[in-house]
């Protein structure tokens, strides 16, 4: 029981855990703070979300979030403030500017360009005359009809070989 004497808590001084009104009229709860904190990342640790991070800096940052919410700042304003304080590391994603845009655009661009290239390529290829080499699996299946219903035949074919 001795260790229970150790206090281990995310203390939120100066805010209305007891529900006292703030300038905006609504009390700021721990829940509100955590919701905002969950959209950001710890500046010092690696990949740890602010709401679950328990190092002293993160606790203080959560206090700051509470204070800012209490004076009516929006989550977006708070994020901007933290980026100014600690750099883009708090965003948990590359900022959408400058060279960082590479990460946002390159995968989509690759998908689009290769996708279109592939489409054109396939279109050209499929419009070429069809040649079926004898002895390939496909040529063989052509020869095996088991049912008159073309659909059933197809299903049969598919279940037969694949």
């Amino acid at each position, binding site marked *: 029981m001795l260790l229970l004497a150790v*206090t281990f808590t995310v203390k939120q001084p100066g805010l209305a855990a007891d529900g006292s009104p703030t300038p905006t009229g609504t009390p700021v709860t721990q829940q509100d703070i*955590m919701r905002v904190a969950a959209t950001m990342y710890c500046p010092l640790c690696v*990949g740890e979300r602010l709401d679950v991070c328990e190092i002293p800096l993160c606790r203080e940052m959560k206090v700051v979030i509470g204070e800012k919410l209490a004076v009516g700042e929006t989550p977006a304003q708070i994020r901007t403030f933290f980026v100014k304080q600690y750099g883009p590391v708090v965003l*948990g994603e590359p900022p959408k500017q400058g060279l960082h845009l590479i990460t946002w655009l390159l995968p989509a661009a690759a998908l689009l360009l290769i996708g279109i290239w*592939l489409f054109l390529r396939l279109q050209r290829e499929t419009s070429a005359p069809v040649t079926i080499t004898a002895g390939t699996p496909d040529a063989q299946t052509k020869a095996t009809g088991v049912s008159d219903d073309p*659909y059933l035949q197809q299903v049969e074919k598919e279940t037969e070989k694949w």
Partner: protein
Amino acid sequence: MLFDQIGYVALSLALGVSLYGMIVGAWSAKNGNRSWQESARRGIYIVTGLVAIASAALVYALASDDFTLRYVVTHTERNLPLLYKLAAFWGGQAGSILFWILVLGIYASIAARQLRRQNQALAPYVLSILHGVLAFFLILSLFAANPFRIMNFVVSDGQGLDPLLQNYWMVIHPIGLYFGYVGFTIPFAYAMAALISGRLGNAWLKIVRRWALVAWVALTFGIIMGSQWAYIELSWGGFWGWDPVENASLIPWLTGTAFLHSLIIQERRGMLKVWNLLLIFLTFWLTIVGTFLTRSGVIESVHAFAISNIGPILFAFIVFLVVSFLALLFWRWPQLQSEQHLDALLSRETSFLYNNLLFLVIAFATLLGTIWPMVSEMVLRDKLTVSAPFFDKVDGPAFLLLLILMAAGALLSWRRTSWSTLVHQFRWPLVCGVIAMVVGLVANEKRPWLLATFFVLALNLAAVLQEYILGMLARRHAHHESVSAALWRLFQRNPRRYGGYLVHIGIIVIATAIVFQHNYQLDREVALMPGQNTTIGQYTLTYEGLRSRTVGNHQEIYATLQMQRNGHLVGILRPKRNLYFKGNQPVSEVALHTTLKGDLYAVLAGWENGGRPASFSLYFNPLMIWLWIGGYVALLGSIVAIWPFPRGRLAAAAVSARAPVRRVEA
């Protein structure tokens, strides 16, 4: 004392034998000498045996608290439970590399056994390559991450294992991951053997297919179990943090999955030879790149091992691999041309090609996001964290597209799909998709992309179920079998196809669970005095108080929460904090209440005055258990796909029952 020497000597001998095997294998490939080839083949067993001896020595040292070994000191302590002492084998850098070699040895031995008679043309190349990879990792172990290093001063107790690793999922999930990563070595060896020897027919593909599936199953298993570990141990209410170590397992999984699809096209149509070689190489290479990224210290990660000097050696290996592969590929290019063309745009082949493209783009985006913090800090001087906010936005939509292609792949026919077949195939799945969307609308979901997701998920599920039903009906029609017999025959006749669909069902279930967990998670942050209660979803939780007790190597502090649903007591939750005597941070142990509808997930966030009040982070994760269920369905499906059903007899029976059909090896 003695064991470190045994281990060290065994590893050194193993290196000698593997170098010998590599050379002798190459030599026999050159002059076709069967006895040299046999010597290289047996060399694999000897290397594996020696590595097993070294592993046994390390495990014994760990279990017996032999604190003369540095590795034992830094990864265990006297009163660590035995299970975790054993798990420390793969819990640290040096040990896990030895474990990697052991797994590679096991795989290589099985491959060597198969090579007694089969695939003699490829055998010397495969053996030489396997010896080469073994030799590389042995060098890594002996010269950069030796688990048998001696402490140069005497200690009475070890430093203990990271408390986060003291969890049963943590004990087993690395096994899955290592078997997955390492498993891709065998397909790689075969692909390279085919490339070097110029025997690029479909022979190598047949054997590679099964090996790739085995590795894929292990990797999938490892990823799912790793997520379960993260879910219950990292206590943030989620299961996948997009951490570099997690990404390093996802990236080869993506390319490996792409390969499992595209190889079907090569088998059926003789196309995409280069592409398949590339994918199998890429998958293997990415396991090594991922290992490099997460272990050399170039990227920081929560799970990262301590920085060591394995970086340069791994880097050299990465460069060597890619340079030699590209050189070989370009050299063999003329022999790699397709025999056939695609017939129609609207065909299963096309959907597979686009599925491959998407898998690769997702893998690329994930790799890019993973290494971007490194690039950013180096080039732009911006320290970054790239995590869920990025991957959700970039990988998320791509996964949705992939799900669309998954349905298309199941519904389109090979070669070409006529409009009538198209309508016939798509009508019911489309109806199901629309129903799902309407249900979403009725449930007051207005976000269009979520409605689209519901549509795609239902479309997929219906498409796969339709495949089973139509297949079964066709068999009933043709062979007059009962429903269950017809279904059973489907699996027996074509385990890969119908096992594959089972995997698809698993994936759909997983995707559904992820979508729900992601978008409908409830969360609540509260501070409670004893006797006070709070509600989350349908649950009312009453805080009863905080207690503590000593367990083994730590002190447990736990809160008791009485859990009621609709006024009925359904159980007690005990979220905990463990204060390890060898650590300084209290480690959170979540309390879970799992139902088919979702998990109630409670974290003890903090306390004051001995628990008056205590604060909690509570989450309700809808459909969470389905994520694991889906995972195990997918596993079952892939095991069905690998399972060697006795096919000859069945095929004969089928032939006698109706019009003669020439069986074609699937």
